[in-house]
């Protein structure tokens, strides 16, 4: 049975706006400016024949002269003393640590060029998210400081800095010293801070995170007497109910959660006829919400009440039971969720993204009722990934304002940008005599400090981390420091006059006492594996001891404040982190800026997400520039019509509007941190704001979602769990047995490289896109070029909306005109890349045979043969070919990492950089295939399945992409493609793609 359900990428496609129709006519949105050339400065101006001939003559002569030089002389400079482990041309891999995840760093001739997850890592299991993949570029960032800064002298020496700091620190008598850092979970780093405190006893270490989890930590203290961030085990949960927690996108530990979440929903799980159920209550469309089986819209003010009513529905007693009277849909969903949760006690999990202590107390109460503690939530082996305390930082601010603080040291922390009130912060720290920052660049906070002691990038320094109880990872430097920087911990050691001056030595000493002693392993052994797990502590019983009634009171007050004075222009605002930029620390990374937001597909900007219907009611059109005001802070941002945004609410992403981060982050979006509210001792992501029209011209967001559409052809296949259990092939559509073709059949005697992509495992996180960028030297084109539909990504994750089906009925196309349906959309993500068709339409039309088929099933692309007719892109039904409109690697107009001598170092030497006028596309990481084959040949053996991994597959946190040799019947990919759920996109046109997709299965409960 084939569904004729309508899938659409954006509202403009749905409504067929004239602009969309016009731009979508051809493969390329903009016609060539031939008219302009002919009519304007081109031929019509007086170009005398003589001038023309002169120019011709000069050109001919110049070319002739230039050609006289035989060849440029290339130098070859070998090592003087070659390190034994380096063989030029062969990469070395080292273990290191990124953000608590153990990683493998690929280096070529001594420079790191790619980060991959370490298969030994308990958090990532060898996978990594987009941020981790992109982090290698920050190493070479030219916006970083090249030397320490002392009193605005940008060429200070370390000796001067050390002398100044030590003298100044010793001058402070009776004044307080404060070290302000983001979460510090490095055991050695903590020990260094402790040693510093011993030397300067007036010191206190304050941890503060831009996006804080202190509500959860406090709630656990109130409820169980354990002030910890628990370690969640989503893989043990059969029913997951999330209230605004974007655990697949940004919440606590997304890489780990992605893997755990999909382990109950992927092919292996479905084969066991098992699939978890996920219900999401949220305001804006998050990555997690878009993957949920059921998604219910609630306003931020309704979140606490929804939790309270769920608590009552589960049998919890509360003095004043609450009902969601204004939102009957959510109220009904709460009772369904309660029933499902109650039916899965011990296998259920409720999480909430709120940073409000009272709300989290209610969540704890619910989880306690469900028996989640000890099963899906571990309080005794907590996570140390976030430990910031909002209240501590506010205390520090008050101390500073009173003039009690004599010195402050900022470590990996930037409150000048991400504190709720930057002005107040500036005033407060201006009262501190000695201000020191370890920032790697002159960021918003560091520019207020006298001393900037630039810290190493994580690939330049020794480090360690302890992301959760019992799990330790080692960070290893893989390159000599690029600039004159120094590890922050080393600085603290020197300033504290520690007898151990070398941080490397310090870590080893520290580990010898702790981890090495406990694990019985040597430092070198651990350096090889990268991490060590000392085992879990036994979990004690946790009896809930919180006060739900008190929490309920606080929630109600908070909620009524949020909903108060509901006039035409005041709306509830939800501030969130998006998947690519996160909290804004990596805002200067062009790879991340150009990674489209998974849901809205916007690049290079933040925006106001609003429901189309609600915007219509307020009288705004899409992309209107609107002013958002809270108290005395306001920003002007464009409106973005987001299907699935709750009525009466807007959402704005943090992490944008950096002023001091560097070239790429400059003038990208607006800062949304000041919209946070400090309530009951925590910073909360909700507030009440006023919208007002600016009357300015609409702002064009660089949005990729409707680029490369597939002309309304039905390329998504989905089914429900119920149908799947009856018939595993349900929803895969008709299988075409088209014997007639224009093309000859290819023989694949050796390998047949193919790929399987499980739509049910893909969560749309975008890690594959960045991994592909890094591996294949894909240029960044910048906002303007993305607006012209010229982004270069070889793999894109298409996001399709469809209207929620009622029962089994098919949504009629004309229902689309009713905007209210845009609230209830379901989402499917589909990674789309070159399908390596056996009958490739692109290959047939190339006039110069620049793209041809190989005997291994790949569609090859010879760049130096391509003359740029672009016929192939025009003829590709999957829209996966990309044209180089410029020499991106050598053009200073682009925010590109390729056009300066530092960031160029990140390029993969095994892949050519493409020149202007050349077509490119996914090569299936042919450099990796060739390298893998060669290794096998050198060892005189067959290629082992799994030995060759393409970049997107390697990093996919959920293992949704499987690559391999179809000619090997035992390979993972052959097994995956033999699944009943497999279908091929556009197989009806007989292109015989090499990539098979598996249907999306939804666990929609017809309760």
């Amino acid at each position: 049975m084939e569904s004729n359900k309508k899938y659409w990428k954006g509202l403009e496609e749905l409504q067929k706006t004239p602009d969309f129709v016009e731009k979508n006519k051809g493969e390329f949105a903009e016609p060539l400016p031939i008219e302009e050339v002919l009519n304007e400065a081109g031929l019509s101006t007086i170009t005398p024949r003589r001038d023309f001939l002169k120019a011709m003559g000069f050109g001919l002569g110049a070319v002739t002269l230039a050609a006289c030089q035989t060849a440029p002389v290339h130098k070859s400079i070998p090592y003087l003393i070659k390190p034994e482990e380096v063989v030029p041309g062969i990469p070395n891999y080292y273990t290191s640590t990124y953000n608590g995840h153990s990683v493998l760093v690929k280096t070529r001739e001594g420079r790191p060029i790619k980060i991959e997850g370490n298969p030994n890592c308990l958090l990532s299991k060898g996978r990594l998210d987009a941020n981790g993949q992109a982090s290698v570029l920050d190493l070479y960032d030219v916006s970083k400081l090249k030397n320490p800064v002392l009193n605005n002298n940008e060429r200070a020496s370390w000796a001067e800095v050390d002398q100044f700091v030590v003298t100044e620190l010793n001058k402070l008598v009776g004044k307080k010293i404060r070290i302000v850092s983001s979460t510090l979970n490095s055991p050695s780093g903590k020990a260094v801070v402790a040693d510093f405190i011993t030397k300067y006893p007036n010191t206190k270490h304050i941890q503060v995170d831009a996006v804080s989890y202190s509500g959860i930590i406090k709630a656990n203290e109130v409820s169980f007497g354990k002030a910890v961030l628990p370690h969640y085990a989503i893989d043990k949960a059969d029913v997951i109910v999330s209230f605004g927690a974007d655990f697949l996108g940004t919440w606590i530990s997304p890489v780990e959660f992605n893997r755990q979440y999909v382990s109950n929903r992927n092919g292996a799980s479905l084969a066991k006829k098992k699939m978890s159920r996920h219900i999401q209550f949220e305001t804006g469309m998050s990555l997690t919400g878009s993957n949920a089986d059921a998604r219910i819209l609630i306003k931020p003010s309704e979140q606490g009440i929804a939790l309270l009513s769920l608590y009552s529905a589960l049998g919890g007693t509360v003095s004043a039971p609450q009902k969601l009277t204004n939102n009957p849909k959510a109220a009904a969903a709460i009772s369904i969720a309660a029933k499902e949760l109650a039916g899965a006690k011990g296998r259920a999990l409720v999480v909430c993204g709120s940073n409000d202590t009272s709300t989290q107390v209610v969540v704890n109460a619910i989880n306690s009722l469900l028996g989640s503690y000890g099963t899906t939530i571990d309080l005794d082996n907590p996570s140390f990934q976030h430990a910031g305390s909002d209240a501590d930082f506010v205390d520090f601010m008050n101390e500073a304002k009173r003039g009690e603080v004599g010195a402050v040291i900022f470590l990996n922390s930037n409150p000048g940008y991400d504190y709720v009130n930057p002005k107040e912060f500036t005033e407060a720290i201006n009262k501190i005599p000695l201000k020191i920052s370890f920032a790697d660049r002159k960021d918003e906070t560091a520019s207020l400090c006298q001393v900037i002691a630039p810290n190493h990038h994580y690939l330049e320094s020794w480090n360690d981390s302890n992301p959760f109880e019992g799990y330790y990872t080692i960070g290893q430097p893989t390159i000599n420091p690029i600039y004159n920087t120094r590890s922050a911990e080393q600085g603290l050691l020197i300033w504290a006059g520690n007898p151990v001056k070398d941080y490397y030595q310090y870590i080893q000493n520290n580990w010898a006492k702790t981890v090495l002693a406990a694990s019985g392993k040597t430092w070198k052994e651990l350096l090889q594996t990268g991490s060590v797990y000392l085992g879990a502590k036994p979990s004690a019983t946790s009896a809930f001891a919180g006060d739900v009634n008190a929490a309920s009171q606080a929630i109600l007050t908070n909620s009524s404040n949020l909903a108060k004075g509901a006039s035409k222009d005041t709306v509830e605002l939800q501030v969130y982190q998006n998947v690519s930029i996160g909290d804004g620390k990596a805002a200067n990374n062009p790879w991340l800026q150009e990674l489209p937001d998974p849901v809205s597909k916007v690049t290079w900007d933040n925006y106001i997400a609003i429901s189309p219907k609600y915007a219509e009611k307020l009288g705004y059109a899409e992309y209107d520039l609107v002013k958002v005001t809270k108290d005395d802070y306001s920003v002007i941002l464009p409106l973005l019509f987001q299907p699935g945004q709750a009525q009466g609410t807007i959402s704005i992403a943090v992490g944008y509007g950096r002023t001091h981060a560097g070239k790429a982050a400059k003038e990208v979006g607006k800062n949304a941190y000041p919209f946070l509210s400090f309530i009951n001792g925590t910073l909360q992501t909700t507030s009440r704001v006023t919208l007002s029209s600016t009357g300015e011209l609409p702002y064009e967001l660089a949005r990729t979602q409707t680029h490369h559409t597939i002309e309304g052809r039905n390329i998504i296949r989905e089914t429900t769990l119920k149908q799947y259990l009856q018939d595993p092939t349900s929803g895969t559509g008709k299988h075409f047995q088209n014997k007639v073709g224009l093309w000859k059949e290819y023989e694949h005697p050796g390998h047949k490289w193919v790929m399987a992509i499980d739509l049910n495992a893909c969560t749309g996180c975008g890690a594959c896109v960045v991994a592909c960028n890094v591996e294949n030297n894909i240029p960044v084109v910048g906002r303007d070029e993305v607006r012209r539909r010229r982004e270069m990504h070889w793999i894109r994750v298409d996001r399709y909306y469809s209207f929620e089906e009622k029962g089994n009925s098919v949504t009629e196309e004309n229902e689309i005109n009713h905007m209210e349906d845009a609230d209830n959309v379901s989402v499917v993500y589909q990674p789309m890349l070159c399908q390596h068709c056996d009958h490739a339409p692109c290959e047939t039309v190339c006039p110069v045979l620049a793209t041809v088929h190989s005997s291994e099933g790949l569609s090859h692309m010879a760049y130096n043969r391509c003359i740029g007719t672009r016929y192939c892109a025009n003829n590709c039904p999957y829209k996966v070919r990309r044209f180089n409109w410029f020499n991106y690697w050598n053009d200073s107009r682009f925010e590109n990492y390729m056009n300066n001598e530092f960031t160029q170092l990140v390029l993969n030497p095994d892949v050519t950089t493409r020149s202007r006028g050349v077509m490119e596309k996914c090569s299936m990481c042919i450099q990796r295939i060739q390298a893998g084959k060669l290794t096998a040949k050198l060892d005189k053996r067959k290629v082992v399945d799994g030995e060759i991994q393409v970049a997107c597959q390697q990093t996919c946190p959920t293992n949704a992409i499987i690559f391999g040799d179809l000619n090997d019947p035992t390979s993972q990919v052959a097994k995956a493609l033999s699944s009943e759920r497999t279908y091929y996109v556009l197989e009806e046109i007989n292109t015989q793609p090499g990539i098979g997709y598996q249907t999306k299965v939804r666990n929609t409960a017809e309760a």
Partner: protein
Amino acid sequence: MRSISLFLRSVTKSLILFTTLTFTGVYVSHAQSAAEGATLFKQKCTSCHALDKKVVGPALKGVSDRHKEDWLVKWINNAPSMIASGDKEAVAIANEYKPMVMTAFPELTPDNVKGILAYIKAEETKPAAAPVAGPVSGDGSQSASNGEVSNFELGGVIAIAVIALLVIFVLNRVIKSLERVALQKQGVVLEEEVASGPAFRKLLKNKKFIFFIVLVLVIFLGSAGWKGMWETGVHQGYQPVQPIKFSHQLHAGINKIDCQYCHTGAYKSKNASIPSLNVCMNCHNYVQATEKYNGEISPEIQKIYKALDYNPDTKVYGPNKKPVEWIRIHNLQDFAYFNHSQHVKVAGIQCQKCHGPIQTMSEVYQYSPLTMKWCINCHKETEVNHKGNAYYDRLIAAHSKLKKGEKPTAAVMGGLECGKCHY
């Protein structure tokens, strides 16, 4: 052009050889054994001994005076056993050079040893000649290579000469007719000039002849132009002057050092890699060629020491290291991927197949054209070395073309596909 220069070089070489031979033949009596001894000396002895300088072992100058010939033969054949047997002289030497022990060379016949000794003796007698001879021969070959003219230059010179002649001829004609016009104006009626060569004139007026000449010119210039264009960017024969006059002839040819001793990457990586200087130092911390330079360390070897800031007396590297900037000879375009290990280790191809008679090159030049045509031709002709390599088993078994009886060349196995080299 390469072939011409090769020819020139071989001519010069044979000339030099001929003169040297006649020279030496006149007054060196035991030339035969001394010449053989010279080769053996370089192969076996120079790694530890110099003629006039103590290196690892003693200086060999005057060794025949210090020891009897019979004793020396025995000693060189098996020194350790002589020391063990308690021979007085042997023990004395062993004590002096502790812990180094003279290596045994059982493969040398008494005649071989005598040859070596003869060579040493001969070298002693002409102390001044040796240092002059070395550099002269080196410079000679270098100037030959530098004086070499490229295709382009040669063609250019000829073309310029031809054009100049034509211009002179035409100008001459113009002047003559102008003169005639001027004279006519003055009223002077000239008699028809008596044709100097009536046959030549006739020929010039013969259309068939003119057509033939034009045709020849078109063919000649056209083919020359075509060839020139076709070979643009092809640098076959490219032989730049390197910062160190490293001789493959000496190292790979005479000393027979295996290629992969220095070019370790060739067997495991895409880059054959130029050896780092610490590899040179494996030998050259004692091989200093002092016998050629009056006891001084060879200036070329000194360049290594300088780059490494190495002190030969203390034998330590200093802090002021400076890398050697070799000039790259084989410049394969960036868009073509070439992997040495695939060709050398997997396919088992000799280095000489692409790099030419490297063991005879005192200075390396580009032997192969490195064009795509050249690559493709080889891929079409060369059979894949699949025997005993399990990787190829399935491919060989499943390939329909092989079943039809085609040879398993690289091309048949997919070695001509674009993506095998271009990505």
